[in-house]
């Protein structure tokens, strides 16, 4: 995997296509980095949970808001993903309502941190493993 690759996405939480669109973009990003299934699917799954958390209450309240994703690789085969929701008006229920989701994130990510200052930022760190060996045809 190469170092320094980056993906940034910003989407409207009221758009019901937002979770799927972000998952697809992240999946394409991971594919370009040669991260194979099932690890690729698992990373998309964990990030999908963070996205679901960001949009869940927006669906219920129809309040406007955006969800941002920032994914960044380094040279040590580590992927850092931040999912950030600026909507301070959104009522949070991270410990109970999304308990299953956080359990899934923690089962997949090497490290998870949640910052609720001025919104919610879920930071996930993933090991992406050794890069596949180059093959010649």
């Amino acid at each position, binding site marked *: 995997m190469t170092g320094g690759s980056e993906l940034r996405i910003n989407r409207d939480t009221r758009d019901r296509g*937002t979770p799927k669109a972000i*998952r697809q973009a992240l999946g394409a990003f991971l594919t370009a980095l040669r991260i194979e299934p099932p690890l690729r699917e698992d990373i998309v799954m964990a990030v*999908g949970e963070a996205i*679901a958390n960001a949009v869940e209450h927006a669906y219920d309240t129809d309040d406007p808001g955006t969800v941002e994703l920032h994914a960044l690789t380094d040279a040590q085969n580590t992927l850092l993903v931040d999912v950030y929701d600026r909507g301070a008006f959104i009522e949070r229920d991270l410990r109970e309502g999304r308990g299953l989701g956080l359990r899934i994130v923690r089962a997949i990510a090497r490290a998870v941190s949640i910052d609720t200052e001025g919104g919610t930022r879920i930071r996930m760190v993933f090991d992406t493993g050794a890069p596949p060996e180059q093959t010649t045809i």
Partner: protein
Amino acid sequence: MDPQSSLDVVRLVGELDVSRRSELATALSQAGGGRAVLIDLSAVSYIDSTVVAELLRFRNEADANGRPVAVLIGSQQLARVIEYAGLAHAFAVFDDRGRALTFLAGTSPT
């Protein structure tokens, strides 16, 4: 058909996430009064925890009514998300329809 011997099948397709949670809840609520329920997710390629929570709520309700539930999957992503949620033992999950039906046929009404 005798409702006490009948099987309700709830079938969904595509990617099931938070945006389709209410659709799933509606589909499950429309399951008839048969003796057992097969939730057919064999054409579903993705589920998230909001879907798992909805399935768990339905399974708990079915349990209380003595109705066995089997979940049929076509993608191992579904099995893994259930496992990661710590609910591998909460659902009867099958990747083969025949085995799912055999399981439901072998469960006795309570």
